[in-house]
């Protein structure tokens, strides 16, 4: 039985309204179970910004790590809160990724990637990405010291992905997917504006083209294998919270959240919270599971549930 785990955020929600949470999706039965409700998660409201909600998800042994905007949480596989950590340089976190004994987090507000030691459970590494014209430069910093970067949110970094070739970083304003090889940062591939979740896949790149409401795969060939999988169309009459104010904050069809299930099948998220399985090789949609009809409720993190 294959399960997915996903987090959702509700943009512009106020206290007392739903803020999304974490859900397990059983793909066989296409059923959904909410396992964390942000409102009842025992999380202190003080000092949080408007962008509440849970975002990136990653796993390490018997721990489920879930990022909020400014805080990293660790849960048991039964979703009992174990611990949480903050860092002055963690702001507007989006996605997280585990590589070897580190967990890497996007600190969108600081145009940085932070490293979290999975053994010592502390932030121990920071890399600020500076950009000038079309050049990128990594500048290391100690996230426990005062000499870190300014909060600029220039690149709006929204994804980090690691493999044996290095670290891949992408943001709304990076112009594409960047590659960090340990010393330098170079453009791996240029991508459309408004991209989320960009990561290497097969010999190309897989990403959500959020502006065009599609999940795309682009390979190195002449395009025979390239795919643009449209997110499911939603009947807008059936949506809740679609006032003019809400429309400023969110829109249907916003593609975000992505996980690779095999060499040919991937899962993608969209708003209002929907998770869809795509068969890239067959160029077809396999199934789609709706989590919410609230226009403002959007998928954020999406992973295969390993337990």
């Amino acid at each position, binding site marked *: 039985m294959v399960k997915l785990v996903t987090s959702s955020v509700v943009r*512009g929600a*106020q*206290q*007392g309204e739903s803020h999304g949470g974490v859900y397990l999706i059983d793909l066989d039965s296409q059923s959904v179970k909410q396992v964390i409700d942000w409102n009842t998660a025992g999380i202190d409201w003080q000092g949080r910004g*408007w962008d509440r909600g849970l975002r990136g998800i990653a796993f390490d042994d018997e721990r489920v790590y879930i990022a909020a905007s400014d805080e990293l949480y660790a849960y048991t596989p039964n979703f009992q809160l174990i611990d949480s950590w903050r860092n002055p340089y963690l702001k507007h976190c989006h996605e997280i990724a585990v590589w070897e004994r580190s967990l890497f987090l996007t600190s969108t507000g600081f145009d940085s990637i932070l490293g979290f030691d999975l053994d010592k459970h502390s932030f121990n590494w920071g890399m600020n990405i500076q*950009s*000038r014209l*079309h050049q990128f430069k990594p500048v290391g910093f100690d996230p426990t010291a*005062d000499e*870190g970067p*300014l*909060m*600029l*949110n*220039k690149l709006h970094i929204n994804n980090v992905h690691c493999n044996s070739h290095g670290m891949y970083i992408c943001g709304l304003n990076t112009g*594409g997917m960047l590659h960090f090889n340990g010393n330098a940062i*170079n*453009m791996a591939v*240029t991508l459309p504006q408004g991209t989320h979740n960009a990561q290497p896949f097969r010999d190309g790149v897989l990403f959500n083209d959020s502006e065009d409401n599609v999940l795309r795969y682009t390979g190195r*060939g*002449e*395009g025979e294998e*390239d795919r643009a999988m449209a997110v499911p169309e939603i009947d807008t009459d059936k949506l809740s919270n679609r006032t003019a*104010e809400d429309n400023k904050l969110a829109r249907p069809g916003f593609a975000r959240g992505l996980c690779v299930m095999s060499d040919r099948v991937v899962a993608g998220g969209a708003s209002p919270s929907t998770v869809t399985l795509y068969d890239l090789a067959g160029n077809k949609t396999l199934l789609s599971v709706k989590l919410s009809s609230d226009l403002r409720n959007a998928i954020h993190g999406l992973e295969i549930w390993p337990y």
Partner: protein
Amino acid sequence: MSDTSIDKGSSLSQAIGFMRANRPLRAEELCRDYLGQKPGCTEHLRLLGHALMKQSRLQEAEQQLRLALSLEPEFPQVHEDLGSVLAMQSRFEEAIVELERAIQLQPALPLAHKKLGQALQAVGRGNDADEAFRVYLDNDPDRQAIAEHVKQLREGSREEAIKGLRVVLKRNPDSVNAMRFLALAYWQGKENLGDAEALLRRATQQAPDYAGAWLILGALLLERHKHMEAISAYQEVVRLEPENAEAWGGLGNAYSVAMYPDKGAEAFAKSVAIKGDAPGVQMGYAHVLKTLGDQAGALAAYRAAIKAKPGFGEVYWSMANLKIFNFEELEVSAMLQQIEREDLSESADIHFRFALGKAFEDKKDYDRAWHYYHTGNERQRMTVSHDPVEMENRHKRLRSVFTREFLTEKANRGHDVPDPIFIVGLPRSGSTLVEQILASHSQVEGTSELPVLGKLAESIGRYRTDGVQYPEAARDLRKKDWRAYGQQYMEESQRHRVTDKPFFTDKLPNNFPQVGLLHLILPNAKIINARRHPFDSCLGGYKQLFGSGQNFTYDMLDLAHYYRRYDAMMKHWREVLPGKVLDVHYEETVTDLENQVRRILAHCGLGFEESCVRFHETERAVKTASSEQVRQPIYTGALGTWRRYARHLDLWQEELGYIIDELPEVSRSAGL
């Protein structure tokens, strides 16, 4: 039905949340719901006052705050809020009383001293205002530090100011004032403009009502060519401060460069109505009126700018640039006096010289005209950079990549839309006339000089780590890339379009080296080369002071060199892409209009329309130097104008003589 068990804390918390989310109406509803049950809650009355202030309902806000004070007369924050509401209504004396009372009740109120200082300043009590500001600054180390760094910035110690403001931001990352002034410091040094923009975006996100930050953001975005975003930023300022003349002027500029001249004129008119003596705004207003074809209005605005600032050389040049305008004697005398001034800026001096060139040309005093054009060009050349060798190398590289074999091998891979019609050539060679003829056709939209193709070419290979750049990087493009670049051109040019006509023009003359690229990415696009006798082309450029770019036009040898390179490049395209580019000679167009119009339309696959011959009747905004000329019927007065200056043109005779021999007879003999 109302819920009788509304919890006070929860109600306040939700209302504050709505205020933070910039939803004051919803906050007002919540407060009123609660006050319906408990009318005496001063916290809700105070919050209601805030919600009403945010909606600019100041009298209602005042009423609620006074009610709160009648219930709790020693509530310092309410006295402060009431002081704010009164000050917002320009009732400063009453505001001072309330603010002083607030401070008396709670001396450490963080902003009350600042507000008191502002109110005291507004009623002319300068010393008292200074004291209030001093107390305000003394109470907050960040504010004090920012004020100190702003002072450093004003005194020219930019590096120290940057260092200090960064320290403040490290300590207090949400300090919107530190963000604003650090951005300003970066901008002043023309460095880190991306960081400056990011700082201002954060400041305005953090404090959506911070008009000062929006204003700088608008100007910065304009400088960074983000025109639509600049419009949005300025719109925020005028929403917050409807009487801000500077913001209306900025909005006018932003609309104008984004090619919304009607809206630009409207915004400038509002700025001028509020403050009529801002020379820069008057000049911007005049420019946009010129674009709209309102020459009388443009002249009036130019003259208003001169009245406000007599040494404003750029305005005189702008008047000269109307082309079909003659200076009055008094204006010529004024210009001659201005260039004698020792304190005149270099820029103003250059503008005056070009304007004087035009003035003496109109008087047919060609030697004197040449003197001013020539000295103006000499001085302008010192202020700009142009590297003829680099250009020559680049052209060579383009020719070595875009060979006949390469173009054949990569053919039919691009985006196959037929929509764009490119008009290339040299500036001042009749391209605006060709554009106006085409734009007079029912199927064609005339856009302008679109800054798209060159940028797209530069982006090819930009991120290659092996150092291979465009044009060589084009050799490695895949089939799908050519198509993608064609689509990208169409998407980006779409932003400059306002109609849904099937065809559109892009008349950036400097696109001529990119004919090979555009043939491959847009194989069905049409290309026209606007040509003119080289002496008239070069002279047209030499007599022109461009707003920016075209740096090769300020030196006679640079011009000749550029023309030779242009000629060589066009010969290359003719050889490798026979029939692709239509040469349109200006001299043939003005002497044989209808036949040339038929020829142009046939090349573009368009049927003949009489309106194209009557192009001068077409009403559309035209921004280039020839904007007034194409609003006149065809005339032959500009043929062979180089002959007036023949005795100064020996250099061009030597350098360009061989090209003249290849021209049609009508071009060679023009002006005889």
